[in-house]
């Protein structure tokens, strides 16, 4: 007798809880209205440093994996990671014309014609890379297999493994590390300072767009989806998405429910969390069939974000890439979230 009552009580409590998180935006006129999806696109790639620095080599350093590496030449550089951040950094340092290949994510237009050495993001082929005869390979654990990177080292190519964790607070250090490995320390300092100043500027620009009243702030969640199977992952603390939502002035829903890293969540959990806005990777949104397909995924239509079709997507490689392009990424996302600064609204044509 007791058990059914308890079960009913639980259900009622659950329903009440669900109502408590009910839609708040869309109805509140003073809140940041969000209707229709928007795509954030940046055309502003970081400009290379002028004048072009000349590497002072050889340099010896201890890399992220604790290995002593000596770089004695940097005429032919490979910089490979899953986001394309390392190659963008080399480009911003002014050494882009020394790159002899690129990863599939590198978006800098000047580098587009280089041969792509990573086809599915993480399976490198040692022979193909050696055929490019690199003097130095900059990479991290986001790409592999690690054995291939070790094979390159066995073959006499200095392989510098860097920290692959991306986030706002490590942008400067990661720029300096790339610069140090290429013997352009002073240029690294200059670029890191420039980017740090730009980040602060971008953040204060964005801060002006954020609603003053905390209760008007958008509840955001970074949703990782692949296909319509109804599998979603949230990106939480330490995933890079947390910094992004904070900078955008959103309320990090994943933070409220203590999601760390990437965690799967089911449809009811999504409804319960009641996000106002989804941040997504463009390919992820496309894989579910765009915004219309997304709404058919169970749970999505029942969230305020789903009801308002409030989705902001950005290129997979850019949205969590950080690096020197982070200020531009942040501005583009802010414009997609809050509309253009001139009030014309973001690109909501999708």
């Amino acid at each position, binding site marked *: 007798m007791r058990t059914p009552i308890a079960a009913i009580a639980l259900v009622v409590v659950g329903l009440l809880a669900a109502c408590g998180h009910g839609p708040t935006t869309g109805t509140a006129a003073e809140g940041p209205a969000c209707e229709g999806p928007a795509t954030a696109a940046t055309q502003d790639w970081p400009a290379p440093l002028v004048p072009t620095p000349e590497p002072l080599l050889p340099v010896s350093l201890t890399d992220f994996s604790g290995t002593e590496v000596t770089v004695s030449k940097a005429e032919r550089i490979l910089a490979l990671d899953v986001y394309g951040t390392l190659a963008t950094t080399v480009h911003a340092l002014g050494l882009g014309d020394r790159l002899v290949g690129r990863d599939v994510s590198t978006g800098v237009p000047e580098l587009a014609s280089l041969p792509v050495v990573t*086809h599915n*993001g993480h*399976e490198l082929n040692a*022979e*193909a890379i050696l*055929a490019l005869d690199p003097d130095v390979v900059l990479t991290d654990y*986001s790409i592999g297999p690690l054995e291939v990177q070790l094979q390159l080292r066995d*073959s006499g*190519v200095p392989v510098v493994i860097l920290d692959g964790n991306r986030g706002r607070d490590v942008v400067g250090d990661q720029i300096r590390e790339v610069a140090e490995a290429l013997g352009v320390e002073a240029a690294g300092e200059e670029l890191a300072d420039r980017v740090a100043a730009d980040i602060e500027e971008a953040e204060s620009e964005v801060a002006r767009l954020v609603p003053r009243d905390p209760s008007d702030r958008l509840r955001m969640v970074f949703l990782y989806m692949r296909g319509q199977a109804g599998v979603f992952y949230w990106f939480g603390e330490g995933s890079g998405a947390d910094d992004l939502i904070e900078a955008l002035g959103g309320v990090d829903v994943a933070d409220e429910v203590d999601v760390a890293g990437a965690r799967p969540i089911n449809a009811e959990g999504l409804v319960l969390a009641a996000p106002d806005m989804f941040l997504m990777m463009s390919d992820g949104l496309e894989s579910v069939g765009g915004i219309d397909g997304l709404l058919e995924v169970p749970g999505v239509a029942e969230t305020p974000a789903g009801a308002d079709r409030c989705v902001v997507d950005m290129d997979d490689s850019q949205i969590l890439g950080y690096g020197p392009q982070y200020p531009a990424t942040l501005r583009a996302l802010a414009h997609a979230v809050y509309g253009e600064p001139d009030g014309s609204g973001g690109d909501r044509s999708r």
Partner: protein
Amino acid sequence: MLFVGGLAAAVVVVGIIAAGMGQLRVPPSEVLGSVLHRIGLDVGPEPSHPRGDAALWNVRFPRVVMAVLVGAALGGAGAVLQAVFGNPLAEPSVIGVSGGAAVGACAVIVFQWTFLGTFTTPAVAFVGGLATTLLVYGMSRSGGRTEVVTLVLMGIAVNAVTGALIALLVFVGDTQAREQIVFWQLGSLNGTRWEAVRVVAPLVAVGVAACMSLARRLDLLALGERSARHLGVDVERLRMVAIVVVAVLVAAGVAFAGVIGFVGLVVPHLARMAIGPAHRWLVPASVLGGALVLVAADLVARTAVDYADLPIGMLTALVGGPFFFWLLRRARATSGGWA
């Protein structure tokens, strides 16, 4: 005998062709020159590409050697297992070795264990494969004997559990770990280094030698368990030794290369079609046939798409499956059934 000799010659020839082909183009004369220089003969041209010599010795040669070793291990293990089970469907995954190894490898990937450096994944996979096999065997044993049917059923049950554990690990892992798991399960020889070859070679050598030494008793076992026992074969002991040998061989191969399906199943069948069921020749033919298939498949895997590396398990099944199907149809048409 002639067939086995021919196979051995074919492995050597295909091995040399494979050693001479790759994404970093080195003409055959320069490959030969590089080898001759390495063994102290100052003959022939050295690779003209600045990284040519390094690529050959650090990347390509260990990989070709590993393909030979893993192929030999899978082929030999398949032949022995089919004999021990007296069943043409038996393949290494039946006794849980692949599944157990996969659970070990996935756990390393998801929990990011690194206690043995780059050897962590292969070591844990090896232990996982071996332990799972012993578990299957141990649970099937009762009153000092095992029955084939119990063994197979126990293998199926254990495979279901390992499948569930892998699914759990996929769930727990982050996006990057999931991708790694998927690719590990498709198998690849990409990134093989001499260190790995040095670990696998002795295991495969001992395992293959053990397979050969079992061959005569396997022939007697083919007469039926009872007849074999009357002829002085300790069937239970034979079965146990054979399973341990198979587990070591397959675990050694799978540990570094991931799951490579079909070779252990199909190659012994092909060998049996060519030379009949006598294990004295069937076992070496399967060993060599496995090596041949894997070297050829790996050559395609690493050269088919520029800058990319295809999963080899996909290739062996994609080509092996239809070929096997065609052979089955033909065998049915000519001999009226499967023997």
